């Protein structure tokens, strides 16, 4: 079955991973800017990283037969230094115009500090100033519930926000309802230990239905699985769900989500 992985950090994966993903049916990936595992030393590092996501990774993916799209942003892990963050935010407008960029992401909160909120407000403002879609990273573990509520509060405060153009990502059982009820897209991440499993994701589909639900691997430089979406497909089939429902979750939903960006130009090669 053809599928999208709407959130994966391709820059941290090997070319072999991309070839395997393509063999399993991956046709499109979305790569949000994020933390590389260490704090970058200066704005130039971000500039180069944004170039990597808009110039080099699309080529590497295309060689495997996968279309690559990117999101430009500053992860909450590097949002604490507000002055530095402001310099990075100033770099964004030029990159947001690049042809494979869908919007601003992944942005959000990590430890939910005052400085993180200040930087987040700056990022949201930069996004809305040019009517960009936004992809939100919600915190890990014990911070997730509180951080998700705070992000939703910040969004509710801003009248310019169109929930249909916002995705609240890394939702779990205690946060998914909050995102869906407010009209946002909800991302569920298949990631070991700290996020959801294929079985729990299938549970959430059974409880909340497929509307505005996205499933992703968020595979990165840590222990994670670039074939997590196909694993989810297999789990859904094992549980007896029809291919029409599975396809909606892994193909039609991300297609509808990405299509809201004028930069998205994917045209299905096969009539499926």
């Amino acid at each position, binding site marked *: 079955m053809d599928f999208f992985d709407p959130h994966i950090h391709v820059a941290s994966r090997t070319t072999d991973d991309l070839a395997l993903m393509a063999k399993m049916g991956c046709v499109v990936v979305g790569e949000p800017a994020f933390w590389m595992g260490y704090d970058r030393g200066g704005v130039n590092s971000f500039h180069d990283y944004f170039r990597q996501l808009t110039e080099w990774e699309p080529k590497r993916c295309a060689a495997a037969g996968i279309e690559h799209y990117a999101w430009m942003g500053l992860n909450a892990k590097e949002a604490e230094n*507000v002055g530095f963050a402001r310099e990075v935010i100033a770099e964004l407008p030029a990159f947001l115009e690049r042809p494979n960029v869908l919007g601003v992401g992944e942005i959000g909160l990590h430890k*939910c*500090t*005052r*400085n993180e*909120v*200040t930087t987040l*407000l700056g990022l949201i403002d930069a996004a809305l100033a040019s009517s960009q879609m936004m992809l939100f990273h919600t915190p890990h*573990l*014990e*911070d*997730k*519930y*509180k951080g998700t*509520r*705070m992000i939703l*509060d910040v969004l509710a405060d801003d009248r310019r926000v169109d929930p249909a153009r916002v995705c609240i990502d890394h939702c*779990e*059982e*205690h946060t998914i309802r909050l995102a869906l009820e407010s009209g946002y897209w909800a991302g569920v991440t298949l990631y070991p230990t700290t996020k959801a499993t294929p079985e*729990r994701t299938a*549970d959430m*589909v*059974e*409880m*909340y*239905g497929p509307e505005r639900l996205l499933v992703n691997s968020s595979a990165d430089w840590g222990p994670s699985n670039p074939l997590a979406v196909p694993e989810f497909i297999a789990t859904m089939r*094992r*549980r*007896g*769900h*029809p291919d029409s429902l599975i396809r909606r979750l892994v193909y039609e939903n991300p297609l509808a989500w990405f299509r809201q960006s004028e930069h998205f130009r994917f045209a299905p090669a096969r009539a499926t």
Partner: protein
Amino acid sequence: MANAATSGVLDREFLPLRARLIDLAAALDRIDRASGLPAADPRREQIAHGLAVLNSPEPNRAEAVLAAFSLPYDPEWRAKTPRG
């Protein structure tokens, strides 16, 4: 949305569930056997809370376990986290 294979759920879940319960029991035994752990570690309370949720007849246990391991949300956070 109903589970598409309701009749097979117990068949499918029984052995993996049994295995995970044994894993869980063994991990708790391991913690008990370790010497010198502070009895008042707040994580022990979270674990106890999580186990109580597993044994409860209420639905949405996964959500309740996640809640047991979550920091509280304060709706007044803006006043306490002023905009910089």
